[in-house]
């Protein structure tokens, strides 16, 4: 994971109401939550700043109404932020003209929607080729690229079906296919799997990881499902009432929840399955252990070893000992 930010949000606010810009200005660009409410405004995003790194999966997580969808729409400028700046590849999105914005969407962005948002009057292949069609690419050419994508998302043989002839999972494959048609660099997925049945959801998540492994896009993924977030994310952003509560890796969130809100999410999770050895090991190096474990192994897989051995050494990828783990720490962690 390289650390160059692909997308940067700086102090983004989004208020709904009569004249939100003036209102923010008159309150020093930092009005109180209560004042906003009292003045008849609705706060969708409150002072959000973040960076999205190249090739990472950044999951934005929050309950409905937490502002996560609005935030992502600000990033793609489907919604204009009230104030704040958004840079995409060092281009200030707020200063783009209509046509420049269309150009960026035509070549660098793709988006998948919660309810698929397929065009009901177009077949699978016509849906997937649509972004190419609006660019004015010739039929033969765009159908060729569309067929490649149909292969990628596993819809061979369904090219000429209409959306309503497909199951939910298949429909979302079309949605994913369409968003990938322009080979985007920034890929937005807005709760793509939440309208699906649990089993299909799991299958789609795996499929998604598979696709990402081969394509390596920069991804912003929205979900309200913490399990899904943990499973997919490199980093997670937790939002509550329009505010970013915490940004961090899954382990950071579990080990160091920023507040009670985040804590509540993480409490009932099977932590031994989510956390790796690194997050609870003792950094004191005790070399006299016969058994070793790797730092990124999940705790549940080394449980038995530690409990029977009493103490193990922790190795990094190049087999250097970087710490140790003993029975007491592990039992304490599990019983917590």
């Amino acid at each position, binding site marked *: 994971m390289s650390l160059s930010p692909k997308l940067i949000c700086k102090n983004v606010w989004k208020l709904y109401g009569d004249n939100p810009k003036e209102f923010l200005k008159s309150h020093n660009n930092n009005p109180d939550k209560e004042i906003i409410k009292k003045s008849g405004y609705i706060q969708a995003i409150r002072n959000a700043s973040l960076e999205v790194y190249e090739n990472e999966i950044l999951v934005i997580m929050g309950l409905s109404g937490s502002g996560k969808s609005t935030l992502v*729409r600000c990033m*793609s400028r*489907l919604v204009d932020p009230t104030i704040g700046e958004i840079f995409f590849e060092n281009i200030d999105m707020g200063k783009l003209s*209509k046509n420049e914005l*269309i*150009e960026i*969407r*035509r*070549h660098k*962005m*793709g*988006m998948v*929607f*919660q*309810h698929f*948002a*397929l*065009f*009901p*009057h*177009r*077949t699978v292949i016509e849906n997937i080729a*649509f*972004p190419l*069609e*609006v*660019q004015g690419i010739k039929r033969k050419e765009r159908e060729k690229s569309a067929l490649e994508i149909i292969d990628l998302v596993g819809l061979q043989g369904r090219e*000429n*079906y*209409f959306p*309503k*002839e497909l199951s939910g999972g298949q429909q979302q494959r079309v*949605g994913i296919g*369409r*968003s990938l*048609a*322009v080979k985007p660099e920034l890929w*937005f997925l807005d709760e793509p799997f939440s309208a699906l049945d649990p089993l299909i959801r799991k299958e789609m998540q795996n499929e998604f990881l598979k696709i990402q492994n081969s394509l390596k896009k920069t991804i912003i993924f929205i979900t309200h499902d913490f399990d899904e977030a943990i499973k997919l994310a490199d980093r997670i952003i937790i939002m509550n009432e329009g505010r970013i509560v915490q940004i961090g890796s899954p382990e950071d969130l579990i080990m160091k929840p920023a507040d009670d809100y985040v804590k509540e999410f993480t409490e009932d999770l099977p932590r031994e399955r989510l956390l790796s050895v690194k997050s609870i090991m003792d950094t004191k190096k005790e070399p006299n252990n016969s058994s070793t474990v790797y730092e990124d192994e999940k705790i549940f897989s080394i449980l038995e070893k530690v409990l029977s051995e009493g103490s193990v050494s922790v190795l990094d990828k190049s087999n250097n000992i970087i710490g140790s783990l003993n029975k007491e720490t592990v039992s304490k962690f599990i019983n917590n």
Partner: protein
Amino acid sequence: MQKKKLSNKIIFISLTVLTFFLYWYGKEIANYLDSKWLVKYPKHYSFPFAIYTSTFVKWLINDANFWLFTFNDLTRFFAWIIEQPYNIVLAIFSKGILKGQGQDAIQIMEPLSWISVVGIFFTLALYTRDKFLIILVVLSIVYLAVFDQWQSSMITLSSIIIAVPIGVVLGILLGILSYKSKILEKIITPILDLMQTVPVFAYLVPILVMFGFGPVSALIATIIYAMPPMVRTTLLALNSIDPQLKESGLMSGCTERQLMWKVLIPVSKPTLLIGVNQVIMLSLNMVIIASMIGAGGLGYDVLASLRRLDIGGGIESGIAIVVIAIALDRLSQSFANLPTLSKKTQKTFFTKYKKIIFLIFYIIGIYILGNFFTFFKLFPEELMINTSLFWEELVKYININYFDNLESFKITLLTFFMLPIKKFFLGIPWPWFIFIITIIGWYFGKTKLALLCLMMSIFIVTTGLWEKAMITLYLCGSSVIIASIIGIPLGIWAGLSSRANKILTAFIDTLQTLPSFVYLIPVVMLFRVGDFTAMIAVILYALAPAVRYTAHGVKNINNQIVEAALISGCSQRQLLFKIRLPLALPEILLGINQTIMLALSMLVITALVGTRDLGQEVYIGLTKADIGRGLVAGLCVAFISIIADRIIKAGSNNLKNKYGIK
């Protein structure tokens, strides 16, 4: 809460009592106070809207000038544009291609023969893959030939073929514009209200003067009347699109135009087709009135038959209109519901357009055959059916044998039902009436609605047409009451039994598309000239929505609610009265609302049998070519319907919100 309800009740009762008190003693009080203006609005206070309007329109037509061209040039230019495609369509279906004008014209090419037109409709129906519909459509077209309505039907069909696409395209464009601009939407909405509520008679004369005499003016009047639902449907369809679909279009890189024409419009196609259907039906409703200003066709036949008292001829031509209407209605509806199926195999040009290619060869074949055998050109006269005598004898039979029974029925209804209502409306002093209307407006829709009611009623008073407006209210009111008494039970029946629904739908469709002119004369023959006859005609026409909406409301209740009621031990009767009806109430209210609208539009036509209401005023404006008089009276009718519409809709919405149903 309880307290508020109680005080509401007290206010309601005291207002009612006061109203009746004023109705009985209003005159005495006015006399006592020596202020007669309380009961009768003084003539010299009326504002001469009519004269100003006439002067303005005259100025517009004769003198208005936009430097490069006059207003008249502009309207004539529009007329010319519409005339071109109309002439082509007319040539294809009715006149053939002609060279020259008047009696010197030589026919170069024959119009399509009746067999070809049957072929065209058959092919159209084939696309729906509905056997029943195919038979229905073919029979309808054959009816036109068999009953000797061919020539006129084709003229009428030609004007529909032109009016509908123009109405639809204009409607969609206006819909799109008002979707894009909130300001435009605010401007357009009241104009649409007026277009739908001002009686057509009121603007026939100005249209004639602006666009010249002939089929084009008739087309324009038809378009004005039939277009508003298309604008509304377009707006509704666009506004109800899933925002995610719009976003997915944008994220695919659509420009604004691509978004509209590649995403939004195609996605709303099913809803738009419903609008198209509406435009077709309304255009056919206009056939008669259009023929008054030179459209010719079936409408003219109906009018001419009336003039000759040829009841049978009128009915045959009238049914020809119904038949065309039903065929086009069912066709357009089933196109709207056509399932989109996957194109699993690639199609060649031939397989894709197979039907059309066959049709073209068929038409050419028939054309060639027509040169050898006249059967293929014209339907043979000896096979035609004429039922005039039957209808005439039927009406005569009823007239001779049952007139006395009908008469006594009529007298009873008149004395115990209609006259008291008339006296009531005419008896209430106008300031009190306006006050009550405003209060009602305030109760249902707060300040905004109250203001609307107040302004509109004041307009009606100041035109000096208050008394005629009250007679309008009385005629409309008694018709609506009886239409509801008949229509709601029929609607319940249709909602509960699907077989009844089928029969009633056919019956109602006929009533609504059969031009009222057809039954106006038989009704006059049986009930004489007067308010009662007018009421019968209005009820016949306005019955449909009461039935339709009630049926819809009763039928479309969440199944779980019905199951819950049954589990609680409801009998069928209890289910109907305790569950279905209360929940259907908002829908029934909307039905009554529609009934009121139709009744008001029909009242203008019943002026033809001698009413003394606003309809008569509009009709006088028409026959005397007095533009201002017609328009002002038309506006009064429009305002009455707008007031009624807003109050009832507000009431229905309040109920829906209370029950939490949308």
